[in-house]
């Protein structure tokens, strides 16, 4: 699959995998299909998984003509016939969806990258060892 491909089928599938919630559209409605294709093009494993999943689904017209239950059924068929490819495709979709600032806001997550700011922790408090220190040495003598 390439960036020039028709992404309507992928977009519809993304909406079933991560459906709308609260005021957020589903992953397809958020316009993530292009990003999924782009990221998959950069990694041969990802691309193979994407190609497998999309290739195993009905044609775009047939898929979108199905009702929600039918679309989920089509996806489940792919999942059971090639769980590794489907799982990897799902992992990529999840990673991309949870990169989105709007999703972070909904989760009330700061969404910062881990660095350079890092985080703050309360300092080490030795009193937590009060019980553990009462234990006699019990390592096995040789």
């Amino acid at each position, binding site marked *: 699959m390439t960036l020039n491909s028709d992404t309507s089928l992928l977009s519809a599938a993304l909406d079933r995998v991560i459906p709308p919630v609260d005021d957020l559209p589903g992953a397809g409605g958020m316009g993530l299909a292009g990003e999924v294709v782009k990221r998959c093009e950069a990694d041969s494993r990802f691309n193979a998984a994407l190609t497998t999943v999309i290739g195993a689904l009905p044609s775009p017209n047939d898929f979108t003509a199905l009702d929600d239950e039918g679309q989920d059924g089509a996806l489940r068929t792919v999942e059971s016939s090639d769980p590794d490819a489907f799982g990897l495709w799902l992992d990529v979709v999840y990673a991309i969806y949870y990169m989105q600032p709007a999703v972070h806001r909904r989760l009330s997550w700061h969404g910062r990258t881990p*660095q350079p700011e*890092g985080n703050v922790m309360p300092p080490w408090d030795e009193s937590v060892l009060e019980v553990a220190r009462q234990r006699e040495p019990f390592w096995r003598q040789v």
Partner: protein
Amino acid sequence: MTQPIHNPDRTADVLIIGAGASGAAVAASLSEAGFDVVCIEQGHWQDSFKFPTTEPDWELRSMSSWSINPNKRKLPEDYPINVENSAVDPVMFNGVGGSTIMWVAHTPRLHPSDFRVKSLDGVAEDWPISYEDLEPWYDLNDQVMGCAGIAGDPANPPRSERPMPPVPIGKDGEMIAGAFDRLGWHWWPSDNYVNSTRYGEGRDACNFCGHNMMGCYQRAKASTDLTYWPRAIAQGAELVTGARVREITTGADGRATGVNYLDSEGNNRHRAARAVVMAANGVGTPRLLLLSDSDKHPNGLANSSGLVGKNLMFHVYAGVSGVFPDHEEPWVGPVANIILSQEFYETDPDRDFVRGYSYQMARGQGPGATARSGPKRVSWGQNHHAELGRRFGNTLNLGVIGDDLPEEHNTVTLDDRLKDSSGLPAPKITYRVSENSRALLDHALVQGQAVMEEAGASEVMINQLSREAGWHLMGTARMGDDPERSVVNGNGQSHDIDNLFIVDGSVFVTGGAVNPTPTIQAIALRTADYITNERKDLKA
């Protein structure tokens, strides 16, 4: 790092293969003792300011170009590994610093009993050295790498004061520790090679980003590119990067003469040396020994015992995850080096397995990783958001690291078809989880569930076996006194070739139930001291 110009045509005193945990330690020790040292490393220097934890797509990159798994990372300096017949995937990093770039830097030590499992429990083999033999080098390594921790752990022999106080264990650590206390079970703050204060040249204190497996931007986590290599290079050691060793060469007398390698341009080169030290990890070292076969060494180098590549040990990993609805920010702090419990470390005749395991608490992750990892992936479809909402920000983990006894059918061999980017045969892993390991993990999962419930978890999930958890590559060129039952002696010296040494996890006889790097580095430093003191003939 700037190096002086070296003459590539000289005969070095010692040539080291691999610039990771053990190779760096040997390079620093021998160069400080006046040896002319050259090290060949297939990877490159890392720039901590370019680690992916500063990029918005860091979670996605942990699945591809920054995966711990070389089969997923697929960088030119990696080699593919055939894992079709393995229950566990080996993971590693190829570069200056080796896997210390990607480790969590959890640094417990083996127990004295780990060196005597045959005598004590009637299984596997005893080591030719003891805990006490290694202790001075454990202490030295703790100083150079920088250990944060606190002495007094009742599960281990007394040890010297740690150079830094423990990294804070956080409210989540206290919650799990409290559960261990109430159950009457051991726990202790983990020894870490993570700075709790400024320590070492240009190395800050940890800022608790929670993702020390993806390189440390702060340089708070010790990796040997930051600790041993600057010392080695300052003493004149030469480090050649982007260069892949093809074989160890031998002379008419069968002794090692150096290596043939491919330089960064792909040109065939030879480096001559009076001794060769292998530090290429428990998969890379047996692979190279097998690749170095010749008329004089038809089964590969140093392999008269036939044990090169056999007795592969990984440590078996499993886990218990607990959901704590009232908990917040479980991603704050080091990811998996917080507290450990060794309540069930030693053999108990009342159990249906020998040896034991450690628990290591681990923290939660970002939303993407939460969705795709853990005991099971968050489901897709209508339940997705509710399930993610329950787990994200509320999940803590208890990892189980189990003793993995050596078995000759667990092997590293050369694959018939798979090749690396230089056309060299790739390693093939054959590995299955033993009945003893399975029984041990099953016991651990039951007890771990009790810990999570005692801590107040509303939901507990079990991971029976972690597949992508082969961090610890051990046993494939083990040490021993009997040349028919081991590859190297207690000094890491090949029984067959007196100027060939091995200092990585390959030499482990048994694996214990702890992360092996401090032991690997202590062994490397001890071997370096042996060379310094007993093999002055190797110095020009």
